[in-house]
C-alpha cells in the first residue's frame, strides 16, 4: 500500500496529461498537460525516494522542476510568437513548417 498508492496516483495523473496532449487543441492547455506529466513523474520519484530511504530521488525531482521551468519559459515564448504571427493558439493551425 505504501508506495503503490502513490504510484497509481502518479499513473492516473500521467494518463490525464497524455490524453490532454492527444485530445486538446489549445496549445496552452496541451502544455499544461505536459506539466502534469512531469509532476506525475515527480510524485513517483518522491515515492521511490521514500521507499529506498535516500534523497537521490528528491534531487531528481528537483532537477525535473528546474528543467520544467526552463521548458515552460521557452515553450510559452514559442506560443506567444506563434500567436503573434498566426493569431491563433490552436495546434491544428500551426502548419508553418509544412509549407
Amino acid at each position, binding site marked *: *500500500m*505504501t*508506495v*503503490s*498508492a*502513490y504510484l497509481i*496516483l502518479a*499513473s*492516473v*495523473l*500521467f*494518463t*490525464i*496529461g*497524455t*490524453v*490532454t496532449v*492527444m*485530445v*486538446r*487543441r*489549445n496549445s*496552452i*492547455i496541451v*502544455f*499544461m498537460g505536459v*506539466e*502534469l506529466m512531469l*509532476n506525475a513523474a*515527480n*510524485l513517483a520519484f*518522491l515515492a521511490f*525516494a*521514500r*521507499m*529506498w*530511504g*535516500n*534523497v537521490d530521488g*528528491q534531487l531528481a*525531482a*528537483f*532537477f525535473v*522542476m*528546474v*528543467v*520544467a*521551468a*526552463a*521548458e*515552460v*519559459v*521557452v515553450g*510559452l515564448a*514559442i506560443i*506567444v*510568437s506563434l*500567436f*503573434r504571427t498566426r493569431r491563433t*493558439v490552436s495546434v491544428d493551425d500551426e502548419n508553418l513548417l509544412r509549407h
Partner: protein
Amino acid sequence: MNNGLMMTTAEQFLFWIIGPIIVLGASALLFSKRAVLTACSVMVTMVGLAFLYVGLGSPFLGIVQVVVYTGAIMMLFVFVLMLVGVDVSDSFIETIRGQRWAGVLLGLGLLVVLSGAVFRSTFTFAIGTDAASNGNNAGAVAHLLFSDFAFTLEITGCLLIIAAMGAVILTHRVRLTRPITQGEMMEIRTKRGMRLTPPPAPGNYARHNAADVPAIDARGKIIEDSVPSALRMRGQVHNLRGLPQDLLEDKVPPTRRPDAAAPAIEAGTAGSSDSAGPRDTGGPPEPGDTAGPEVKP
C-alpha cells in the same frame, strides 16, 4: 511521520483527501472549455501535490513545488493566457475523425499498462527518508546537490540562462519602420487639427467615475471623447445615470458592427471638438445644438 513500514492513518487520511482533489483538478484539463478555468484547476492540483510531497518526507520539495509550480509556472501560464486573449476557448469539433476516441482509448491503455506494472511489482517496505534527511531535509538535499551532483547543477544553471535568452530572442520583434518621435507626432496633430492635449478623463463628479461614463463640460454637454475609443466602438458607453444606451443612443451604435464603428468615432471626435473648443465656452446652449445630449439629472 514516516514510520517507514506502512502508511500511517494520518497519511492515509491525507492521501485519500488530497488524491481525489488532485485528480479532479487535473481532469479539468480534459473537460474544461475555458483555458483560465483549466489553469486554476491545475493550480489546485499543484498545491495538492505539494501536500503529498510534504507527506512523503520531502518538505523542501513541497515548498519548491508551491513556489516554482504554483507561483511561477502557472502564473506564467495565466499571464500568457491573458496575452493571447482570455476568450480563446477550445473548440471540440474534431478535425481528424475519431481522434478523440482514439486518444481516450490510448490513454486508457496507458493507464492499464502503468497500473498493471505497479500491481505486478513487489515493493519493499518503505524505509522512509527520516534517516537520510537526519531532521534537515533541505540540508540533506543541498549536501547531495553540491557534492555528487555539483556538475549537474552547473549544467542546469547553463540551461536556465540559455532558456531565458531563448525566450528573449523568440519574443523579440524586429522593428521594421522608424519609430515616430514625440515632436513629429505633435507636428502631425497640429497639421491635421487634432487635439494636442490629452483627452479629458471619463467620469463626472458625484455620480460615476467609471471609464464608460463620459465626462461633461462646463455647459453640461457630454464629452464623448473622454470615453476610451474601444468602449465607444463596442457601444458600451453609459449615460450619466449609469444606464446603458439612454442618452447616447443616437450617437453610438448598439452593436459592434464593423461598418457602424467608424461613424461612432467620427461622431465622438466631432462632438468633443465642438464642445471643447474655445468658442463654445460662452454663450447659452442653443436648443438646436446637437453636439451632445444635455444633462438631465
